[in-house]
C-alpha cells in the first residue's frame, strides 16, 4: 500500500508494482518511480543523517542536485555508496540502506555532534588537529574523524561490471532534453544538422514531464511525444537517454556517461518484464562513456533551485519548491497534509497550486516581496485559489525533531512572529542556471539582478545556452530560446538554414523579479541555518570564515567545505558566495563563483578505463614462440608491452632455482633464449653511415659489410639514451637492435631527426621487430650445435666475433633463410639467429634438437640478467638511468674523437666532469650474505639519518657461476674505490650487508670466451 500515492495523475505505471527494501523494511513503488519518489509514496521522509552533525535529513530535491538523500545501494561487489535516491530509478528487488548513522537512522549516537557543535566550528579540522605536530598523532585523529564523518562505503571487491567507450561526431550536440533542448534539437535537425541529444533522465521532456502546461495549444505531454517521435524517426538524430554530459574539454570534446544497467536489477538474468534491449543481459556494459566531438553545442541543462538559510531549514519535510511540485505532478505523490511555502520568486507559486490540487492544505505562502508587487500570473492564480499569502515576511525558523511540525513566520519590518503548524515546507530562494558546462568551455558568467544569480555571458567556444540554463523563467521563452539556439548551432556547424522553420510556442507567463534573499536573521543561539545541506555548512560558518580572513570564495570553500562533496554545491554555492559578499560588503558579481570543474555529477571510475582494465590495461605483445614457452612451463614477466619468459621451472623447482640452473648451464653447456622482443630497425639509404655517426658516440663509417658493432646513443644533454648493436648487412643496408623497452622511442627519435633536422640525409628507417623471430644461442657448445644446422662455415676463422652473415637453417620445414650474428650478451661464445617470423618455431625446434646432445636448455630473462650482471653489461633503465653518462658507465673509450655526435658537445659541461660522479662498479657481498633489494651504498650504516649516500645498487643477483651475491652499482668516484669495503643498506628490506667494490665484470674480463 502506497499511502501517499495519489489515485490518478503522474507518469508512473500503476500496473507495474515493484517491491523494494530500505533499511531492511519492505515497500512497494511503481515503474517510473525513483527511489526517492517511491519512499515518499510510502510516507518515508527521513532517509539519512548529515555528514558532520548527524542531523536527521530528508529528501530535498528531485534530481542530481540532491545533497542529502544519499544511500548505499545493493550488496556485495555491486554495493555502491552515495547513490542519489532522487535519480536512482526503482527496480524490483532494489535494496538500499541509509548512511552515516549508528545504530539506526532514528536514533543515531553521532547526533551528539549536533549538541557539541560549538566545539567543531568551520575549519575545526585545521584548528584542532595541529598538535602535537607529528604525523603519528594526525593519523590517529584522522582515523577517528573518518569513522565519525563521512558517507557510504565503497565495495573493496573487484567490479563485476563492464564499461565501454564510444566516439561520436555530430554537427549539433544538444545537452538536456527539456522543452528548450527538444526545441533546439528539432530546429537543428530540420535545418539539416546531424544532431546528438542527451538527457540524464529516463524520460524526455525535463521539467515538462507530467507538468500541467500547454505547448502548441495542446497538452505539453502531447507535444513531447510528437517531438521525440519525430526526432527518433530522423536517421541523422541520435537520442541518448539516461546520459549525462559531465565535462566540456578542449576542441569541443564533450564527455557523456550513458547508464545502461543501473535502472535494472543487478541480477540481470532474473529481470522479468523489462525490455531485453539494454542492460537486461549480463554481457551488456553497465555504462558507456561517450567522447563526442561537436561542431556546435546547445546547452539546455536547465536550472537548479537554491535554498534560503533559516533556522532548522534541514528538517525532513522541507523540500525545494520545484522538487515538491515534481513529486506531486510527475510521481503523483501527496507528500504531506499541511504545507507552508517560503519563496522569493513567482515559479514557487506553482507548487502551492499543485499542492492544493493534490489535496494538501497550503497554510501560507511566505514571500519577502511586497504584496503589491505580487502581480505575476502565478501569484494571481494563487490568490484566486484563496491561498493565504503572507507578504513582506520570512520564515525565521522551523520546529520538529525528526520531521518539521511548525514554522515561525516573521515580518521583515520586525514584530511578532506567527507560528504555522505544518508537515511540509516548500522552499525556494530562486533558480541558478546549470552553467557548469558553459563555464568549463571557458565561458564567462555575469550576475543578473532580476534573477539574483549568475547567467551565461560569453564563451569563446561554439556553445549556445538556452532555456532555464540561460535564465529563462517560463516555458514560452524556453521554447523560443531553444528553437533559436538550434538554428544558431546549425549555422555554426556550417549549415545554410534556408526555409523558415516554425517555432513551438506556449503562452508567456507574466512574472515579477526574484527578490534576492539568502538567509533570514538568526533566531536563537545554536539554531543552525544551513547553506550547504551536504557538508553541514551554516550561514554562521560562512560569517566565521569571512571574519577569519577567508575573503576569496575559493579559500572559503576549502576552509568551510562549502560546495564540496558529491553534489558540489548545486543547491548551496550561490547562497554561500552571496553571504560571503554580504559579509565583505562587496557586490555578489565581484566575489564570483568557484571554478566549475568536471565532472558535473559523479562518474563511475570504471567508465574511464572502459575495456582497458585488468589484463587489458595495456595491449600485450607476444613472441612467435609464446605458445612454445607456455607449453614448456615458462613463467612470464612484462618487458614493456611484451610478455617474456622469466624462466622455465621444472616440476618441483622454484622460478629462482630454475633461473640459476639455466644460467649455470649457459656457462657450462649451451642455452637458447628468445630475443625476438628486442627492437629491430632497418636503415637503408646512401647516408646511413653518416646518420649513425651523428647519433652514436662511436664511429660507423669504418664498419665493414658483414660486421656489427655495439653503439651508445646520447640525448642532447650528453646523457645516455639507448644502446644496442647495429649490423651492416650490405653497403647501404643496416639493421639496428634496440632495447626491448625503448624500441618505439628510438624509432620515433630517428624519424624526428630525419624529418626535422636532417631531411637532406638519404636514410629510411623501418621497424621490423615483428617480422623476425630471433634466438640467441650461447655457451661453450654453441658452435658445434650451430654447425649442425647452418649451411655456412661457423669456425672462428670464417665467422669471428662480431661477424654477420646470411645462411640457411635446416629445419623440419626445410632450409629457412636466416641472418646470423656473432654477438654476445652473456659473455659466452654466442650467436643470434634471425629468421622470418613464420619460421621462428621451426628454427627454435631445430636448434633445440641439434643441441640435445650438448645439454641445451632454454633460458629466460632472469638467467639472461644474471649472465649479463656477471659480465657487467649495462641495461638502459637500470645502470643508465637518465642521469648517467657514457663515462660514468666506463664506456668513454667508445666516444670517437673523429666526428661529432648528438650530445657530444655537452659532455664537456662541468657537471658531467666533476669529481664525485656516480660510476659503475661491481660489488660482491662479504660472507656470502644475500644482497638486499633496493639497497643504497653508504660508508657507515650506523650514521644518524639522513645517511650520506654514496650511490645505489642498480642490478643484483645470486651468481651461480661465482657462488656469490654480486651486484652492479653506481657509486660516487666508484672507479677509485676498487678494493674498498662499503655497506649496502636497505631500510625497505630492513637489511644491511658489507660489500667489496671492484670492477664491473666478474667473468672472463679479457673476453676470451666470447672471442674463442
Amino acid at each position: 500500500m502506497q499511502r501517499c500515492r495519489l489515485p490518478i495523475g503522474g507518469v508512473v505505471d500503476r500496473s507495474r508494482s515493484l517491491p523494494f527494501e530500505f533499511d531492511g523494511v519492505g515497500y512497494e513503488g511503481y515503474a517510473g518511480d525513483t527511489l526517492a519518489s517511491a519512499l515518499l509514496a510510502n510516507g518515508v521522509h527521513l532517509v539519512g543523517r548529515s555528514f558532520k552533525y548527524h542531523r536527521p535529513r530528508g529528501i530535498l530535491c528531485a534530481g542530481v542536485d540532491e545533497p542529502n538523500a544519499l544511500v548505499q545501494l545493493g550488496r556485495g561487489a555491486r554495493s555502491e555508496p552515495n547513490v542519489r535516491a532522487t535519480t536512482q530509478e526503482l527496480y524490483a528487488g532494489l535494496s538500499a540502506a541509509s548512511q552515516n548513522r549508528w545504530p539506526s537512522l532514528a536514533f543515531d549516537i553521532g547526533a551528539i555532534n549536533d549538541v557539541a557543535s560549538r566545539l567543531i566550528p568551520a575549519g575545526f579540522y585545521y584548528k584542532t588537529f595541529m598538535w602535537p605536530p607529528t604525523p603519528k598523532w594526525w593519523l590517529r585523529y584522522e582515523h577517528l574523524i573518518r569513522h565519525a564523518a563521512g558517507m557510504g562505503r565503497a565495495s573493496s571487491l573487484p567490479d563485476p561490471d563492464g564499461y565501454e567507450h564510444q566516439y561520436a561526431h555530430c554537427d549539433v550536440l544538444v545537452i538536456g532534453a527539456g522543452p528548450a533542448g527538444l526545441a533546439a534539437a528539432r530546429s537543428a535537425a530540420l535545418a539539416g544538422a546531424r544532431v546528438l541529444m542527451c538527457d540524464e533522465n529516463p524520460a524526455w521532456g525535463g521539467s515538462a514531464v507530467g507538468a500541467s502546461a500547454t505547448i502548441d495549444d495542446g497538452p505539453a505531454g502531447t507535444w513531447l511525444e510528437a517531438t521525440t517521435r519525430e526526432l527518433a524517426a530522423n536517421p541523422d538524430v541520435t537520442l541518448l537517454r539516461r546520459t549525462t554530459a559531465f565535462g566540456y574539454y578542449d576542441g569541443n570534446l564533450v564527455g557523456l556517461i550513458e547508464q545502461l544497467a543501473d535502472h535494472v536489477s543487478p541480477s540481470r538474468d532474473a529481470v522479468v518484464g523489462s525490455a531485453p534491449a539494454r542492460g537486461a543481459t549480463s554481457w551488456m556494459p553497465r555504462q558507456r562513456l561517450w567522447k563526442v566531438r561537436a561542431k556546435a553545442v546547445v546547452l539546455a541543462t536547465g536550472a537548479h533551485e537554491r535554498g534560503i538559510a533559516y533556522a532548522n531549514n534541514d528538517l525532513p519535510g522541507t523540500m525545494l519548491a520545484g522538487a515538491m511540485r515534481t513529486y506531486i505532478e510527475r510521481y503523483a505523490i501527496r507528500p504531506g497534509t499541511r504545507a507552508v511555502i517560503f519563496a522569493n520568486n513567482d515559479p514557487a507559486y506553482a507548487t502551492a497550486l499543485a499542492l492544493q490540487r493534490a489535496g494538501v492544505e497550503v497554510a501560507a505562502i511566505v514571500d519577502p516581496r511586497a504584496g503589491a508587487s505580487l502581480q505575476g500570473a502565478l501569484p494571481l492564480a494563487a490568490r484566486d485559489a484563496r491561498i493565504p499569502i503572507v507578504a513582506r515576511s520570512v520564515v525565521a525558523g522551523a520546529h520538529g525533531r525528526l520531521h518539521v511540525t511548525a514554522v515561525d513566520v516573521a515580518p521583515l519590518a520586525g514584530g511578532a512572529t506567527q507560528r504555522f503548524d505544518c508537515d511540509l515546507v516548500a522552499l525556494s530562494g530562486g533558480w541558478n542556471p546549470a552553467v557548469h558546462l558553459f563555464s568549463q568551455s571557458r565561458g564567462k558568467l555575469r550576475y543578473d539582478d532580476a534573477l539574483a544569480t549568475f547567467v551565461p555571458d560569453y564563451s569563446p567556444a561554439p556553445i549556445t545556452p538556452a532555456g532555464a540554463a540561460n535564465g529563462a523563467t517560463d516555458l514560452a521563452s524556453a521554447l523560443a530560446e531553444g528553437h533559436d539556439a538550434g538554428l544558431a548551432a546549425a549555422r555554426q556547424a556550417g549549415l545554410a538554414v534556408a526555409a523558415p522553420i516554425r517555432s513551438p510556442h506556449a503562452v508567456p507567463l507574466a512574472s515579477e523579479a526574484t527578490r534576492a534573499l539568502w538567509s533570514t536573521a538568526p533566531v536563537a543561539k545554536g539554531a543552525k541555518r544551513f547553506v550547504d545541506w551536504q557538508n553541514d555548512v551554516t550561514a554562521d560558518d560562512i560569517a566565521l570564515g569571512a571574519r577569519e580572513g577567508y575573503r576569496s570564495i575559493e579559500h572559503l570553500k576549502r576552509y568551510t567545505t562549502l560546495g564540496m562533496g558529491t553534489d558540489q554545491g548545486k543547491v548551496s554555492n550561490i547562497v554561500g558566495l552571496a553571504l560571503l559578499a554580504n559579509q565583505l560588503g562587496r557586490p555578489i558579481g565581484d566575489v564570483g563563483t568557484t571554478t566549475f570543474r568536471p565532472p558535473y555529477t559523479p562518474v563511475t571510475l570504471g567508465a574511464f578505463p572502459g575495456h582497458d582494465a585488468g589484463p587489458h590495461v595495456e595491449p600485450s605483445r607476444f613472441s612467435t614462440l609464446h605458445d612454445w614457452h607456455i607449453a614448456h612451463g615458462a613463467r612470464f614477466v612484462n618487458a614493456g608491452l611484451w610478455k617474456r619468459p622469466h624462466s622455465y621451472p621444472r616440476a618441483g623447482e622454484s622460478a629462482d632455482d630454475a633461473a640459476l640452473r639455466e644460467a649455470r648451464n649457459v656457462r657450462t653447456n649451451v642455452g637458447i633464449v628468445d630475443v625476438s622482443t628486442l627492437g629491430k630497425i632497418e636503415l637503408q639509404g646512401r647516408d646511413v653511415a653518416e646518420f649513425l655517426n651523428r647519433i652514436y658516440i662511436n664511429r660507423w663509417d669504418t664498419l665493414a659489410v658483414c660486421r656489427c658493432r655495439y653503439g651508445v646513443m646520447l640525448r642532447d644533454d650528453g646523457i645516455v639514451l639507448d644502446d644496442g648493436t647495429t649490423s651492416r648487412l650490405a653497403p647501404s643496408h643496416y639493421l639496428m637492435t634496440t632495447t626491448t623497452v625503448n624500441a618505439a622511442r628510438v624509432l620515433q627519435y630517428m624519424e624526428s631527426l630525419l624529418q626535422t633536422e636532417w631531411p637532406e640525409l638519404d636514410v629510411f628507417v623501418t621497424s621490423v621487430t615483428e617480422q623476425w623471430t630471433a634466438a640467441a644461442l650461447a655457451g661453450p657448445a654453441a658452435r658445434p650445435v650451430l654447425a649442425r644446422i647452418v649451411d655456412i662455415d661457423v669456425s672462428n676463422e670464417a665467422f669471428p666475433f662480431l661477424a654477420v652473415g646470411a645462411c640457411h637453417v635446416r629445419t623440419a620445414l626445410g632450409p629457412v633463410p636466416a641472418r646470423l650474428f656473432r654477438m654476445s650478451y652473456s659473455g659466452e661464445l654466442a650467436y643470434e639467429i634471425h629468421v622470418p617470423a613464420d619460421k621462428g618455431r621451426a628454427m627454435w625446434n631445430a636448434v633445440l634438437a641439434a643441441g640435445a646432445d650438448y645439454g641445451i636448455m632454454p633460458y629466460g630473462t632472469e638467467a639472461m640478467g644474471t649472465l649479463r650482471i656477471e659480465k657487467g653489461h649495462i641495461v638502459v633503465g637500470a645502470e643508465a638511468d637518465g642521469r648517467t653518462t657514457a663515462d660514468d658507465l666506463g664506456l668513454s673509450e667508445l666516444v670517437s674523437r673523429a666526428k661529432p655526435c648528438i650530445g657530444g658537445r655537452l659532455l664537456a659541461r662541468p657537471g658531467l666532469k666533476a669529481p664525485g660522479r656516480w660510476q659503475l662498479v661491481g660489488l660482491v657481498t662479504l660472507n656470502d650474505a644475500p644482497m638486499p633489494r633496493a639497497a643504497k651504498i653508504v660508508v657507515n650504516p650506523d650514521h644518524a639519518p639522513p645517511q650520506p649516500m654514496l650511490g645505489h645498487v642498480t642490478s643484483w643477483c645470486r651468481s651461480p657461476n661465482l657462488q656469490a651475491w654480486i651486484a652492479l652499482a653506481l657509486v660516487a668516484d666508484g672507479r677509485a674505490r676498487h678494493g674498498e669495503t662499503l655497506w649496502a643498506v636497505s631500510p625497505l628490506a630492513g637489511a644491511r650487508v658489507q660489500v667489496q667494490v671492484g670492477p664491473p665484470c666478474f667473468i672472463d674480463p679479457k673476453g676470451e670466451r666470447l672471442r674463442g
Partner: protein
Amino acid sequence: MLLIPCPWCGPRNQIEFTYGGDATVRRPALDAPESEWYRAVYIRDNPMGPHDEWWAHSAGCRQWFVVSRDTRTHEILGSAPPGRTPGQATR
C-alpha cells in the same frame, strides 16, 4: 583532448599523436661551440600565447610536423610540415 590537424591526415584525436617539444629551437650544428648547445638545450622560453611545437602522428602517418598552439587556451591555430610556418597551413 585536443583535435590536432595533421597536415597529411586531417584533424585527428590527440591520442594518435606524440608531443615533441619546442619547435622554435633548432639543434645547433653538431660541431657548434658548446655555448650554443648549452643555450639550445637549457635556455628555453616558456611563452604565454601562440607557440610552435613539434608533434608526431605516431599512430597515423608517422610524420613530424609543427603545430601552433595557444598555451593559454589550448586553441590550435594551425599546423604545417617541417620547414613551413603553421599559419600558412590548413586550419
